């Protein structure tokens, strides 16, 4: 339970850490677009290299990043298998009654690559190098114009901050409750699924009760600290775009443009066409 690293800031001194959070939101979006624009093998190779480059520049240990991929490995494997067996086209390959196609292999590999780049891209830009409050500030200011059409941007941002603040606390609490119930003889590991699901009730009920009590206390504490919504509020960290922000955005836009160009030249599945398999 303790080692869920997704959504945890990794303090380090890197240029990515120092980018404006608004820039990082934009970069994350651009990177997601990039990974979806990718189609050709050249494009994906570029994507892999860009991923490596981003990881290196961010100075975040590979281990930490791999840990964030772990929770979705099952989904990725599942997705890879679906693609492998369901996508038809290209060269046929029969191994002991099972027929797969080269196009299936290609889509399996690329879809996994896409998911990894999604996680790494958003993870590095939005969570590892950006403190949740910075991120919230960034989102709040980037989308601040939506306040004009009555979208409560500040309130959403505040909710997000608080959620992020309380995730570790509630996780610790869950651990405690589980231990307490185990000490009373609760069994979470044996029995049918229904039985195990039922065993969760004595964990969820106290957890919810405590979460509500915390929410109540927090609301009072915030009010005591003169919180009254986003109006008239200033910031400790005022956001300012700098040269590095413009440069990084330029690089990403150029990268995206490059990927689109590669698609236009239509170098799709080069290996298959050459009968490489």
């Amino acid at each position: 339970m303790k080692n869920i690293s997704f959504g945890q800031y990794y303090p380090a001194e890197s240029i990515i850490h120092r980018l404006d959070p608004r820039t990082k939101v934009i970069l994350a979006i651009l990177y997601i677009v990039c990974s979806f624009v990718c189609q050709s093998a050249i494009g994906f190779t570029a994507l892999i290299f860009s991923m490596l480059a981003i990881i290196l520049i961010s100075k975040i240990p590979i281990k930490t990043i791999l840990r964030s991929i772990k929770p979705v490995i099952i989904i990725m494997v599942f997705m890879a298998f679906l693609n492998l067996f369901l996508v038809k086209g290209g060269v046929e390959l029969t191994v002991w009654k099972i027929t797969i196609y080269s196009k299936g292999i290609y889509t399996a590999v690329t879809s996994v690559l896409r998911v990894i780049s999604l996680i790494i891209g958003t993870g590095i830009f939005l969570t590892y190098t950006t403190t949740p409050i910075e991120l919230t500030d960034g989102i709040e200011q980037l989308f601040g114009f939506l306040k004009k059409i009555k979208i409560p941007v500040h309130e959403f941002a505040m909710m997000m901050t608080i959620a992020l603040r309380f995730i570790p606390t509630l996780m610790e609490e869950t651990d405690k409750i589980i231990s307490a119930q185990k000490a009373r003889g609760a069994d979470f590991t044996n029995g049918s699924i229904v039985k195990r699901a039922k065993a969760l009730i004595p964990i969820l009920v106290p957890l919810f009760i405590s979460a509500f009590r915390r929410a109540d206390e927090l609301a009072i504490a915030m009010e005591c600290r003169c919180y009254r919504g986003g109006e008239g509020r200033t910031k400790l960290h005022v956001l300012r775009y700098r040269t590095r922000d413009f440069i990084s955005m330029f690089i990403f836009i150029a990268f995206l443009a490059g990927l689109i160009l590669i698609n236009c030249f239509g170098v799709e599945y080069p290996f298959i066409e050459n009968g490489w398999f």
Partner: protein
Amino acid sequence: MEKNFIEIENLSYAYDEDEGDKVPVLNGISLNISKGEYVAVLGHNGSGKSTLAKLLNMILTPTSGKIIVDGVDITSDELTEDAMFELRKKVVMVFQNPDNQLVATIVEEDVAFGPENLGYPSEEIRKRVDEALRTVGMSEYAHHEPHRLSGGQKQRIAIAGIIAMSPECIIFDESTSMLDPSGRKDVLNTMEKLNKEKGITVVTITHYMNEAAQADRVVVIDDGRILMDGTPAEIFSKPDVLRNAGLDVPQCSAIVEELKKLGVPLDGDCYSTELCAELICNYLTNVQGL
């Protein structure tokens, strides 16, 4: 002393029960607190201490009676939102559970939360945050995550967040009760420092008698009334009244009381360990001197 900073006049409060019943909690409390005082509030569980604190903070509105803070009636119906904001700035509260007071995920950003709400420019916030963290001795933790700190450290961060708003009065509602002895000592030292060095009025609600002994004045609440109000020396010289109010007596007072019962003629203040030791020492030297 200076003029009263907080004036409580005949204050009563009752909680609404489900069936429309009222549960009286405070019954006509009158209390004056001057600027720069260090007041401890004692009382058994459910005696209405937290309710009093919440009334002072405008979280609750009294059923009857008046509270005047710095010349402004905070119970008046005409109180505007802005006036309330100004008052909240003056009297702030530190709660029991440090976990439920911290809003941000980085220490310095949490400390900045209050000043940000007050709308100070960012350089000013920076200054206040650094100063507040220095006051509570947590400067080196500015970039840490609060959930990785110990209870006492978290509570000191919560206090820093309050100090950064430069309030005139801080109410501590059992802010040391979830801490271990060393965490408690840290927080107590911080309280004392705030009062003595910064001249902030401190009201501390507590169950620990030795904490109350540290204050300049002790108020004992029992069943929604003020039972006793005086210096620690006055309060702790009446152990029977304290026991009747469901409270403990400081260990040192209890020792002296027992010794007196045994016929040892001890006379004088004995509410702190030092005073008690001195008393007994004096007695012993006198005996030997005889």
